[in-house]
């Protein structure tokens, strides 16, 4: 019998209490197999709810944050009138979008049209399940974490291609094709940098990648390997921005050129899903960056015992989310600062710059590990 790998206290608690509760059932129904299956199902349900809650709960926060960050870069205030400083503005937006009229354009492939946003939404959810939020808070602690992430991340482009193609609109199609080309190209450097992380940490398991950074702030992968780590981090930042289709790499949406790119024809709830997917991808990518480079849930110790003790008292989840939100803030600052490169320049950048640099990085990293490590 497959025993789910939920290793955190919540999982243990469920496993402990399911047999105890089962004693109240008639004797004919009692069996260890049933107990473990029920425990598994309950655990799985908790996991799904938790992942959904983290993602969907944080999406409105992120949208609000984005609106505020962009407003302050642009010397204005942003949402102000709904709740304290406009805090519940995005909730109103979501409710409004749920109750909007929904229709597909004539000539659209209806099934594909409504499926596309779902597919886009799936990928970041799965990635989120693999991220260790704290020392003993991870949904699925699979040993092949990194390959799994690379595989699942490729899923998102499918939804965007489908959405653009099924809309029966030239702008949508152009946007979808652009984003298809872009995401598939950038997936390569995205995967290569993760491989670099795997190489230096010696593991594909996200938990052990995180735990490998234990110690002071200088043991984080971004600082542990001089210069190389930082370069890898920057490269990861760039390619994940492109993976997410976020500005400055948002040629797929390119409001000024293609009005809305692949989601031009979407309205109401399906559009809300695209909108949410963008922000959920933001959170998973930031979480990945945090896990691989910024020490995950580990506190930023600096080697002075008195301070480190204080830092260690703060729970890992707090550190994790603090780092994630810092990363998100970086993504946002970049988005609201830079202009958008052209589609062919974007490809040039990937194939003529990012990929060569990545290869060099891998080689140099390998040399460093064999010689110095």
């Amino acid at each position: 019998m497959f025993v789910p790998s939920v290793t955190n206290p919540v999982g243990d608690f469920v496993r402990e209490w399911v047999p105890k509760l089962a004693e109240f059932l008639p004797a004919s129904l009692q069996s260890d197999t049933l107990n473990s299956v029920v425990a598994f199902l309950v655990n799985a349900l908790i996991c799904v709810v938790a992942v959904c809650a983290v993602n969907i709960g944080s999406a409105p926060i992120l949208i609000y944050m984005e609106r505020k960050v962009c407003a302050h870069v642009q010397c204005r205030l942003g949402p102000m009138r709904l709740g304290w400083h406009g805090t519940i503005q995005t909730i109103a937006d979501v409710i409004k979008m749920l109750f909007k009229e929904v229709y597909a354009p004539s000539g659209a492939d209806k099934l594909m049209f409504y499926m596309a946003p779902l597919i886009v939404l799936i990928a970041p959810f799965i990635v989120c399940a693999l991220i260790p939020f704290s020392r003993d808070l991870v949904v699925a602690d699979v040993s092949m974490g990194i390959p799994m992430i690379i595989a699942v991340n490729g899923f998102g482009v499918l939804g965007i291609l489908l959405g653009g193609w099924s809309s029966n609109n030239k702008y949508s199609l152009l946007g979808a094709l652009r984003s298809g080309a872009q995401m598939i190209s950038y997936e390569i450097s995205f995967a290569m940098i993760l491989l670099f992380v795997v190489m230096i940490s010696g593991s594909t398991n996200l938990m052990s990648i995180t735990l490998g950074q234990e110690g002071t702030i200088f043991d984080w992968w971004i600082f542990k390997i001089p210069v190389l780590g930082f370069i890898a981090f920057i490269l990861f930042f760039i390619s994940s921005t492109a993976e997410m289709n976020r500005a400055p790499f948002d040629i797929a949406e390119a409001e000024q050129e293609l009005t809305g790119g692949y989601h031009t024809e979407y309205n109401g709830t399906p559009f809300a899903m695209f909108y949410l997917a963008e922000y959920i991808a933001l959170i998973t990518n930031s979480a990945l960056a945090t896990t691989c480079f910024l020490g995950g849930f580990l506190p930023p110790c600096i080697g002075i015992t008195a301070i480190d003790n204080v830092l260690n008292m703060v729970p890992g989840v707090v550190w994790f989310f603090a780092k994630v939100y810092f990363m998100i803030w970086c993504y946002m600052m970049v988005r609201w600062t830079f202009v958008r490169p052209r589609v062919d320049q974007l490809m040039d950048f990937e194939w003529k710059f990012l990929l060569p640099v990545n290869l060099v990085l891998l080689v140099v990293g390998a040399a460093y590990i064999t010689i110095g490590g």
Partner: protein
Amino acid sequence: MGIINLAPKVLDPIPGGKYVVNAIDYVVNWARANSIWPLTYGTSCCAIEMMSSSMARYDIARFGSEVFRASPRQADLFILAGTITRRMAPAIQMLWEQIPGPKYAIAMGACTISGGPFIYDNYAVVRGAQNLIPVDVFVPGCPPRPEALFHGLLTLREKILKETCRKPWHEGLPKDVSTMDRYREAAKTWAALEEMKDEEMAEARAKFKEEHPDYKSSYKPIRIKKEDFPEVERKPFRRVGLTQLELYQKLTAKFPNITFHTHSEEPVETVLANAPADRPLEVMVEPEDYLAAVEFVKNDPEFKMDFLIDVTAIDYDDHFDLVTQLRSIEVGHKIFLCVQLKKDFSIPEEKRPTSLLASVPTISHLYPAAEIKEREVYDMFGIDFAGHPDQRRIFLDKDFVGYPLRKDFSHPEMIRRPL
């Protein structure tokens, strides 16, 4: 939106269901009223004020409306910013249809409320957006300040908050106000009232006249004093390049048919010599000489007219004046070649407004800039440009009847200026 309108039917029979319906109403309306996403749309001046309202100083984001959607399918609000022309009208109707409900429209500025500055003597402008789509809020002004637009947004918010799922949003109908002439209507109503009043008052007035035979009003309106200013001589601008006289003499040497029209009795040379420096030389060219003359002034090393300012025409009773305005970038002088094109009166009179009445060779091979200018003249005056590579209407629809800048032009939708 369909589901929520069913809520009262399903929930009302259940005890306490009313309160649930009210709660849903409250939440949904609150969301709708506070999250109004406008469509990126704008045609003219008002669009700039609309943009200003979303910029740092006024910041429409405070109302949660900074999410300007370029695609109508994601928008809730159609801010009609800028004049609506007949040519644009179908596009606007289509945009409105593409916005999913519940949707709202704000008519921003005088043009979209009533036609604004373009009400009278105009063949191109739709008098008010109400003719095309139902409008919820009107924001007068030309253009309204961003604050006025915000006031409109708040007015719309109040309106949305009044909706319930028992009395749900429904799409209104456009209202035909296109032929409304507010000025004449008001005058007509008043004239009728005056007539009635005259009848009523006749007796009283007669009585008053009897009682006060030499009545004189004690009221004296005071004219406001205007500040007095000295008269100032106009200083003509600096002369650049050849003088008008030199240009004229050189041209006439080449083309003896070229003339200069003047109203004074004095000889042409004296008039030209005394002309202010900044008045360009405007000469009359015979239609046969036109092409050769343009070619000459373009290539002649002394003229060097390499820059075409404009080609335009003027309609007179029996002829058009085609004015080709040229200047030399290098030297700086200007010359206006005016061709008198006799109207072709062999065309029967009833067909004249819709047919081309004159023809002239094109100069678009000499000046690429002339191509669109000649298209404009063709569109507005119905002058044929022989040899033009792409002679189509430029500003008006291809099935537009008539040539608007002719003096005898008439259009069924055009209202004459009352004064």
